């Protein structure tokens, strides 16, 4: 690495860092006033998420010198630990912490980023969306938000039903939009390509946009809707074309959760990705009983970037990855 004479300097201006500190205090006050418990969970854990699209960064722990180190994982999200607190009776909790994702570097990605995550016992995804909207009105100074289902946005922009379109339909849509993508992708992979390349950039241009009722095949940790098993109780929030938050009416069923983890590991095996141990402590907490709840994770760096109209995430982080 070449060190130029200015490379020691922060990637954000001191002025920006002052506003950042102020906005984070506003977020904390928002949750304090609503009766949340602020919590703090381990960043380094013995297991991690299984999602094939999220790679953890591993850390090697040595209990003492001259032994084989034990692999630990820097957390890609505090979700499992926060759900264990809920199962132990914490009531509503929030946390602002660092999360780590391997390989994610770009204009809107830093491999180490600041995440706001909160949980509401007894709330469903729609009630939680209202609370996310309240926070966005406070920080982004907007009057209102708009909401569409996943199916509605595909129909609106492409007159296409994402649940019934074939892979060939999705591929020809990409071709018609002058994007060369000679890839072998799953049905969900093509939907994600269309979403991220063509739809997302148009979302949230005037008002923060909530997209809900994602396909069940992209449920992640959300429950499947009892009234329609094609849909997951999952939502995402977009502002100025940027994905800002992801929320779930949480899956409570320990057996289904374990089955999803094992399915993820199967996918990882076929894609030659690292296989990490299942989080048995989290599964045990689910078995003991997680209260009915909804939770959401929001990218704080992106929120501050949007509040300050900055073009990239590095401009609101004291030292971005290239300067870390």
């Amino acid at each position, binding site marked *: 690495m070449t060190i130029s004479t200015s490379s020691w300097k922060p990637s954000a201006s001191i002025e920006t860092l002052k506003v950042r500190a102020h906005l984070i205090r506003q977020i904390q006050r928002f949750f304090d006033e609503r009766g949340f418990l602020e919590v703090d969970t381990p960043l380094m854990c013995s297991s991690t998420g299984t999602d094939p*699209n999220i790679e953890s960064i591993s850390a090697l722990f040595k209990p003492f010198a001259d032994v084989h180190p034990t692999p630990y994982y820097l957390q890609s999200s505090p979700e499992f630990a926060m759900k264990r607190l809920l199962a132990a009776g914490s009531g509503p909790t929030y946390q602002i912490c660092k999360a780590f994702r391997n390989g*994610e570097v*770009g204009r809107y990605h830093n491999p180490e980023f600041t995440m706001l995550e909160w949980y509401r016992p007894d709330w469903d995804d729609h009630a939680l969306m209202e609370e996310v909207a309240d926070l966005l009105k406070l920080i982004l100074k907007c009057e209102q938000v708009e909401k569409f289902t996943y199916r509605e946005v595909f129909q609106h922009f492409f007159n296409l039903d994402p649940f019934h379109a074939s892979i060939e339909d999705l591929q020809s849509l990409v071709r018609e939009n002058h994007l060369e*993508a000679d*890839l072998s992708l799953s049905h*969900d992979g093509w939907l994600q390509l269309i979403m*991220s390349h063509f739809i997302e950039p148009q979302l949230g241009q005037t008002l923060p946009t909530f997209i809900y009722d994602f396909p069940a095949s992209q449920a*992640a940790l959300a429950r499947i809707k009892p009234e329609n098993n094609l849909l997951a109780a999952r939502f995402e929030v977009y502002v100025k074309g940027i994905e800002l938050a992801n929320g779930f009416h949480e899956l409570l069923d320990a057996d289904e959760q374990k089955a999803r983890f094992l399915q993820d590991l199967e996918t990882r095996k076929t894609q030659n990705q690292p296989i990490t141990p299942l989080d048995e402590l989290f599964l045990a907490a689910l078995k003991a009983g997680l209260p009915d709840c909804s939770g959401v994770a929001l990218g704080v760096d992106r929120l501050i970037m949007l509040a300050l109209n900055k073009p990239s995430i590095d401009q609101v982080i004291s030292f971005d990855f290239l300067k870390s």
Partner: protein
Amino acid sequence: MAVFSTNEFKPGLKILLDHDPYTILENEFVKPGKGQAFNRVKVRNLKSGRVIERTFKSGDTAEGADVNDIEVQFLYGDGEHWHFMDQASFEQYSINEAGVADAKIWLKEQDTCTITLWNGVPLAVMPPTFVVLTITETDPGVRGDTSGGGGKPATLETGAVVRVPLFVQTGEIIKVDTRTGTYVSRVKE
């Protein structure tokens, strides 16, 4: 040739796509929080000049293209081919009309220019940024007008036509910016 992964795609890197050489213009990492990561890459085809957008799965690779630029002297054109010489190695290159493309109206014998080689074969010619050429034909301007407002067309010795101020006359030598095709100044011999 080296193989490059999407996270090594930097502007200016030359790669092979569908057997053609491309230069990378932009590379944006696109990833939904819960979904497939992509690299959305803007590339220029070095043979056709066409710019396209192509999306890769993050971590996919492309083979590097053996493309480099060399400084050469323009020797002469025979109507079908344009001939150049690398002044260091004395190696000669001939390029057809399609390869010379828009550069041909700026090429004057003995001027130095840049050619792009792919696997040692010339792909494209870049004229010098500024060229000094003689006007072979232009209408006589109005006497005494030195403002140059508006201007008039002038044909240069290479066949290029540029707009020049009214006071510039046939036989004079002028400097032209080849990036924009515009007159810069008169040049005194």
